[in-house]
């Protein structure tokens, strides 16, 4: 369960997130939809303790991320597809994360198999395609077998097969009672992937919509009426 309450953040004079309140329930895939610059990434980074809110709170199971005991075993995060050292192998990236987090090494092979990256594990990340980096990022998020997943544009760079696989994976993940929050600026992607969609625009929550065939119309109506 993720609870965001009255969350606000400005960067200089730019108001990125303004008085944002929402909840993400376990057992569902919740989409986080909005135009570029709507404050999606900033909100996710505040949930993960990477960006300090000016006001409000972002709690995971009632606790701030930064106060969680062994956080990566509770929350898995996919942030930027490019955030790897190009000279290190995918396996080394995962092994050093395991080591630092106190997670047993065998998880490395398990998550690599899960995201279908085992064959490329011993190659340098510099030679990976965007889709492979995205899989490695997801593998990193899964290392601690967390009950909550927070994903920022995870479908970026994935090929159609990869997107299909991701959709199935997140669905299965949610069905076991876990919490999934996934951001995107692509509406069709979320309409297929999510149960509910939170629509943000200019840092504010403008609508909570059920995902479905009417999502596009409802989204456009919500965005326009918010202006």
């Amino acid at each position, binding site marked *: 369960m993720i609870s965001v309450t009255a969350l606000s953040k400005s960067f200089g004079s730019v108001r990125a997130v303004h008085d944002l309140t929402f909840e993400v329930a376990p057992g569902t895939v919740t989409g986080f939809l909005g135009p570029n610059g709507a404050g999606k990434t900033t909100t996710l980074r505040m949930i993960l303790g990477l960006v300090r809110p000016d006001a409000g709170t972002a709690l995971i199971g009632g606790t701030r991320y930064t106060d969680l005991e062994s*956080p990566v075993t509770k929350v898995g995060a996919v942030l930027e597809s490019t955030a790897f*050292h190009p000279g290190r192998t995918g396996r080394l990236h995962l092994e050093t994360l395991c080591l630092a987090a106190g997670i047993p090494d065998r998880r490395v092979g398990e998550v690599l198999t899960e995201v279908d990256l085992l064959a490329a594990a011993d190659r340098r990340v510099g030679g990976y395609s965007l889709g492979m980096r995205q899989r490695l990022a997801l593998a990193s998020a899964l290392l601690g077998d967390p009950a909550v997943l927070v994903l920022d544009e995870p479908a970026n760079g994935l090929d159609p097969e990869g997107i299909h696989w991701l959709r199935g994976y997140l669905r299965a993940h949610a069905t076991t009672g876990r919490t999934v929050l996934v951001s995107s600026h692509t509406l069709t992607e979320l309409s297929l992937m999510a149960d509910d969609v939170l629509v943000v625009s200019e840092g504010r929550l403008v609508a909570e919509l059920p995902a479905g065939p009417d999502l596009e119309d409802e989204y456009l109506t919500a965005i326009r009426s918010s202006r």
Partner: protein
Amino acid sequence: MNKLSALVTAELRKVVATRSTWLLVALAGVCCAAFVTLEVVLYDVAVVSVYSMAGQGYVVAMIVGILVVAGEYRHRTMTWAFLVTPRRSRVITAKLLACGVVGLAIGVLAAAVTVPLALILLSMEDGPLFAPGVPLALLGTIGGTGLWCVFGASVAALVRNQTAAVAVALVWTLYAEWFLVMLVPAVGRWAPSGAARAATGWTRAELPVPGELLPMWAGAVVFLAYTVVLAALARTTTRRDVT
């Protein structure tokens, strides 16, 4: 709370697995070999000063330290580190400790290159091969190289931008400070480079402007103090947003 020793081990694994580390370590050996040769061939200096050239891997150690921290910001891998360890000062502490280990290792390798070469070169001259102060000087070079690596990592934690950190550190230590050590020793001996150099047992005897560096022990204490202060500052700079 994840164990600090595990964080340090993870950092060390990353350093060892990075190719640039090994290129730089090789460069440290080349620097020491070059400087010990110049010291014997060009100058008629004390035997201790010849062996103190084992400290000439310091620039490389500093750059390795910078890359360990600034490289994480450059490649945005610091995000992973902060997700695993939200108490960010711990991440920095682990990196600084790892840099201490790496710097000491570079210092030991540098000494392993310098000592045999010094013996060969000195045996071709007529003077003595050894002096009582040499073991302590070598200890100073190894410890100093370890501290330089921590020094570099601390600078990088403050500057963050890798190119800027390398440029600032190189220009400052190699030009600004060395200018002071050579020409204004009354000031230069208190600078990090001057203090660190004093700790290696080297003396200014060969330089045209007269003046002394600090005594060896004082140089060591002053450079250690610089490093500790910088490291403490580095641990406090982690409040900024990671975007």
